[in-house]
């Protein structure tokens, strides 16, 4: 058994896929940061708001005022260094830390694809992605033709987990039996030329997209694995992600996924991409001799450390387990959102809410309502209004705010209503629960009013 494992970890494969992946990932991340910056989101999401929603245990992670720009600058520069493969280990470490810090600053902006970037960059910390076609090769004068194949496999497995779990979570009665929420979203795309007022409005099309999306997510990792179906699968990947790009505002995610799936192609394909890059560099009249391995010392095999094997194995195991944690909670997952994040549950809900906070003096029984506009941005209000942990955190913030203003015996109540996947709205949080007396924990939130409907499936 141990022998088999050791043999596996020592099996070697071409370095080219890792090099291509590093370059594309670094460039895409750099573009993402520039795009984020140019849209003014650093200011509107991290600097303008007075209050930020924290992750449990990460309350100390806060935006840094105007220094937040420097944080983004560091993140952008490190991503570029990753692409160039210059001081790669340090660069990817700085990228992972700065990017993850940015994501932890405010829960409001949680997106699965940001989490995906953190996860991938964590894995890359342990991979020799600079072993070929990098500035490190030039400076250290060492180039590796082969790397252990587990390095590429770990990335493939991670991608497989993302797709497969995204598919599994689509197996629920809302998605498959009512085509919800796709039906609502697609119908609202009436302004698309040609298809907007025709097929986008058709019932059969909503169901086709729902079922097709599920089968796509479940099968694509396997279709990419087998050589015979790989090209076809890649066409599907492009078609699927371009379609989602057209239909939904999902930023850079489609491109990240399209380029990531290139990993599944064999080394000849990647060697050709590297040749293509080399030709591009030649056109720029830069000396490429050292990059093209001619003068640098050719070392055949790169050996990875046992610690890396252990860390990545544990990490991937953890990734397999963590999406299932929602099973530990009673009640409807989509409604309670306990264990919803970090589980590759993508586009499964159209959820909207309204939350009216009431500050009560528990002795005099005098109360007043809060105008959320005084404390939160519209984006924060929207996200807070249907996520119990955010409602609780904001409730505490309000309570403490009014205490510090001299209010006595402060109790905080919320009258909140939420509508889920086209259902009529219903009460969301127990209106008699004093939020000041509740604590955020990993335990079941008994103060959520249960959904009066059942969604079957994952």
């Amino acid at each position, binding site marked *: 058994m141990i022998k088999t494992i050791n043999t596996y970890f020592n099996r070697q494969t071409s370095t080219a896929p890792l090099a291509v992946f590093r370059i594309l990932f670094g460039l895409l991340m750099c573009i993402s940061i520039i795009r984020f910056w140019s*849209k003014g*989101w650093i200011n509107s*999401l991290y600097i303008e708001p007075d209050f930020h929603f924290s992750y449990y245990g990460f309350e100390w992670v806060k935006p840094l005022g105007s220094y937040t720009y420097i944080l983004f600058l560091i993140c952008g520069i490190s991503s570029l260094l990753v692409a160039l493969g210059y001081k790669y280990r340090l660069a990817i470490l700085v990228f992972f830390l700065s990017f993850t810090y940015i994501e932890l600053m405010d829960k409001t*902006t949680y*997106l*699965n694809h940001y989490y995906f970037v953190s996860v991938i960059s964590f894995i890359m910390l342990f991979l020799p992605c600079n072993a070929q076609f990098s500035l490190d090769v030039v400076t250290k004068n060492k180039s590796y033709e082969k790397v252990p194949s587990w390095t590429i496999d770990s990335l493939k497995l991670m991608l497989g987990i993302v797709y497969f779990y995204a598919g599994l979570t689509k197996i629920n009665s809302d998605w498959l039996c009512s085509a919800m929420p796709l039906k*609502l*979203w697609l*119908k*609202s*795309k*009436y*302004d698309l030329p*040609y*298809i907007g*007022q*025709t*097929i986008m*409005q*058709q*019932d*059969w099309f909503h169901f086709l997209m729902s079922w097709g999306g599920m089968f796509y997510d479940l099968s694509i990792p396997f279709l990419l694995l087998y050589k015979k179906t790989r*090209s*076809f699968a*890649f*066409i599907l990947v492009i*078609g699927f992600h371009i379609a989602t790009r057209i239909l*939904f*505002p*999902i*930023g*850079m*995610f489609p491109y990240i996924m399209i380029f990531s799936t290139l990993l599944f192609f064999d080394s000849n*394909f990647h060697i*050709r991409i590297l040749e293509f890059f080399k030709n591009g560099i030649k056109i720029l009249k830069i000396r490429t001799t050292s990059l093209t391995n001619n003068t640098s010392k050719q070392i055949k095999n790169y050996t990875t450390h046992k610690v890396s094997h252990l860390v990545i194995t544990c990490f991937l195991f953890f990734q397999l387990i963590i999406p299932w944690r929602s099973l530990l909670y009673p009640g409807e997952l989509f409604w309670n959102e306990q264990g919803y994040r970090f589980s590759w549950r*993508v*586009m499964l809900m*159209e*959820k*909207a*809410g*309204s939350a*009216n906070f009431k500050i009560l003096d528990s002795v005099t029984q*005098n*109360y*007043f*309502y809060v*105008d959320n506009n005084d404390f939160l941005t*519209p*984006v924060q*209000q*929207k996200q807070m*209004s249907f996520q119990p942990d955010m409602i609780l955190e904001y409730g505490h913030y309000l309570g403490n705010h009014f205490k510090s203003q001299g209010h006595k015996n402060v109790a905080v109540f919320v*009258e909140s*209503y*939420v*509508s889920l996947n*086209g259902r*009529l*709205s219903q009460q969301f949080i127990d209106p008699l629960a004093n939020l000041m007396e509740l604590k955020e924990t990993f335990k079941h939130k008994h103060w959520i009013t249960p959904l009066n409907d059942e969604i079957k499936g994952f």
Partner: protein
Amino acid sequence: MFKKSIFYINLLFLLSISCTDPSESNENIVDNFDRQSMLENITDNIILPAFDDFSEKIEVLELSVITFSNDLDLASLEQVQSHLFEAYKTWQYIEMFSLEKAEEIYYVQKMNTYPATVSKIENNISTGIYDLDSNNNNWVAQGFPTLDYLLFGIADNASNTLLFYQNNDNIAHLKYLKDVVSQMVSITEVVRQDWISIRDIFVSSSDNSATSSLNTLTNDFIYYFEKGLRTNKFGIPSGVFSGNNTRSSKVEAYYNSNVSKLLSLEALNAVRNFFNGQTYNSASSGKSLKDYIAYMTEDTILNDAILTKFDEANQLINGLNDNFVNQINADNDLMIAVFNKLQEGVVLLKTDMLSILSISVDYIDADGD
């Protein structure tokens, strides 16, 4: 390899084109909801006629103010007062359309920020230096609330008000009255003309983006329902935002508060008509948010719920004293009951309707999953 890929991509395109082959999909078209015709109905049959009517009424008001300033008799004063009421009622059909030009020049804020600040008004009058166009600090010293003060609040009854204006010492007050009303006429005309000129562009912007006509109109409608109707007319005066300390001086038309109930009933009617797509001042109706909801949900559950809330709120308001100041002092709980009922309406509009129509909340431009 790449050649093969290109071949597959082309194949995919061919497949997708054949899917949208018109001859095939024509049979399948369910009667598709036409958002442009909804925008046309709202613009041509609700917004434009309301502005026409309002601009007429505000001009009549201006004329009667001029007559009053010349004649300075009781009959012309009473004429001004009744024309003010007529214009204020019609205004309730205008206030929710705080978009386009109106938004740009802060039209609604200039017309109806209440309560007016008396010290500001008196200061403007005594110094004679004021810029009603500025967007800084004169919102509380112009528009309907200021007219309300100058015509009902300056003395305790009509004959004393007349005596006040007949006094030559108060000629500056008379001038301010004329300036305020002429400012109202001119900014109304600016907004009305703008509606006429942008009409075609406005109705054709039926896509679903943060800045499209449909989205801004719907968001403004909800904003008005929540802020203009629920908060300003009921919430703030009844003290629900101020720890149960009632603020009866913050009712709309405070100095002539006998009309407060009538004004709020007009406002609720305006909201209901907009939702139903009912033509201004007429019983006929066209495409509206209600039809759009019915198209999206394929049933009438949400529509019925929303219309029921409107009806229930209407009933509750009808049960109030004509004068909200009296109502608040006698039994504030009934005011709060209206606030709560309207809040239930806010939930349905903001949560259910926006979600069903997939209309994004104003100004949000960010990535999703």
